[in-house]
């Protein structure tokens, strides 16, 4: 059976693999037998091997070196290109993060291949589905040159366990000088949240400019907590200083695709839609009946968020207790 390389995204806090990796392993199965590729500083593979076995990785290629951590992106692309040359896989599947896309692009040049970014599905013949124009158009595309490289959009495939041997194979990492030009001298975490990670959450409650202040975001957090949801924000809310940038949803924020997205005090600008339009169910609360967000909403409430949302939170909490 053909081999498909899947690049593993390791959670930065060392808690294991990101869900995107399990999604990529699942999506890769239609093309062949997935082999996971773990690239990082020494010790990276230890925390992820079990999850990779559980989600069907036949092999786990481990390339560990301090150089991978010390320089931006380029070393990973180099090691992956070497693996593609050695193994001639049927395809390469990479989680669609900013880093994942950069790796895909570099890999395409190095291997003389085509690539498709942000795919939401891959078919057995290699045809991929993509959404264009902020979700308004669905496109089917195919790589016509070299080894097809895909980056898979988060939350578009449901991870399904499958037993894999996860046979470990060490990959020698010899990073060239060309790939050592951009040094990563520090990694700074400014915000941490105890709520679910936005890109992995099945429910998201987002607030916009309509929330009106940083303090009033407690209204959004209250509803989120009653639902066990993550909190998101529009760029206007972020720019106004109501909520930190790391919670921004949209074109220059996170791309999310939860089961339920509740947009509160958000007008629904195209750049916001670009990040949430593929959510399964969309609910909106907005006092303006003409707000474009209602065009997307499966259920909309025209009303003041300051009365509707706290009352809803109370009722949901009461139900949970009952």
């Amino acid at each position, binding site marked *: 059976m053909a081999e498909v390389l899947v690049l593993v995204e390791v959670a930065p806090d060392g808690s294991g693999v990101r869900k995107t990796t399990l999604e990529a392993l699942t999506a890769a199965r239609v093309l062949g037998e997935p082999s996971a590729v773990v690239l990082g500083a020494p010790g990276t593979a230890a925390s992820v091997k079990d999850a990779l076995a559980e989600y069907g990785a036949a092999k786990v290629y481990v390339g560990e070196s301090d150089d991978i951590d010390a320089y931006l992106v380029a070393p990973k692309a180099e090691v992956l290109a070497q693996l593609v040359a050695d193994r001639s896989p049927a395809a390469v599947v990479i989680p669609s993060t900013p880093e994942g896309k*950069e790796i895909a692009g570099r890999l395409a040049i190095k291997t003389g291949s085509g*690539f498709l970014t942000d795919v939401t599905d891959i078919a057995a013949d290699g045809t991929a589905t993509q959404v264009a124009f902020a979700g308004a158009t669905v496109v089917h595309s195919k790589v016509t040159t070299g080894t097809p490289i895909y980056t898979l959009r988060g939350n578009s495939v449901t991870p399904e366990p499958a037993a894999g041997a996860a046979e470990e194979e060490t990959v020698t990492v010899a990073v060239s000088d060309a790939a050592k030009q*951009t040094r990563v001298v520090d990694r700074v975490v400014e915000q941490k949240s105890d709520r679910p990670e936005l890109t992995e959450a099945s429910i998201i409650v987002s607030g916009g400019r309509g929330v009106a202040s940083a303090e009033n975001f407690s209204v959004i957090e209250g509803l989120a907590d009653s639902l066990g949801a993550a909190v998101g924000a529009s760029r206007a809310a972020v720019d106004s200083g109501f909520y930190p940038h790391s919670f921004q949803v949209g074109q220059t924020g996170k791309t999310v695709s939860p089961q339920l997205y509740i947009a509160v005090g958000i007008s629904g600008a195209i750049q916001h839609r670009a990040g949430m339009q593929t959510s399964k169910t969309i609910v909106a609360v907005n006092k303006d009946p003409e707000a474009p967000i209602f065009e997307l909403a499966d259920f909309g409430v025209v009303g003041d968020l300051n009365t509707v949302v706290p009352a809803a939170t109370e009722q949901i909490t009461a139900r949970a207790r009952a």
Partner: protein
Amino acid sequence: MNIVVLVKQVPDSGSERALDSSDNTVARASADNVINEMDEYAVEEALTVKESQGGEVTVLTVGPAGATDAIRKALSMGADKAVHVTDDAIHGSCAVQTSAVIAAALSQLEYDLVICGAESTDGQVSVMPALLSERLGVPHLSGARKLTVDGTSLKVERQTDGGFWALEAQTPAIVSTWDTINEPRYPSFKGIMAAKKKPVTTLSLADLGVDAGSVGLASATSQVLDFAGRPPKGEGVKVTDEGDGAEKLVGYLAAQKIV
């Protein structure tokens, strides 16, 4: 310091956008075309670097003859001159092919710093700067929310999920900007008038020594097979809060088995 800023003309993201059913490429002729809004941050940053380091800002775009609007916008913001690579053979090129054309154009220009946007709103691949870095063998500092230039030393804060990564490299280099980096200026009336007199050089593939057969739809590394409007969601329900909005909302969530 020679700064090249890459801008792309795209269909306005606020207007109706479509693919052309004759060849599945972005319908550019019928669209309301503007500068890719993410590239305004790149232009602003280029002008800021010039103000502190001195030098010249050159706008580079690869696109159809009509792509002059994006160039004019960048010039009216304050860029000094522009290079427009245009050739009918480029139509339908994939990102891999376009990167070869941009790389060829950059190789002809003298540059210390290339500044790009984070993403173009039509293709949304956000890989062009990485492709160029790979082709040109110069470092890429991506997703900049802050750029500091000190002679040949570059420092970037790369925007990440919950903070930033501090990056360092030497010129010549490519920096791609995030929208947290600055607030793009509006062109002044004076700027708009001055832009009309600024030099715009038009180059063809032959001028760059790029083989026309290596670009374009026929030899693209990926192809769009078909497309369709996203199936419309069933007509949503909209209620007006008359004291019962929360109840109806919770009722909906209950019906969906969410609560």
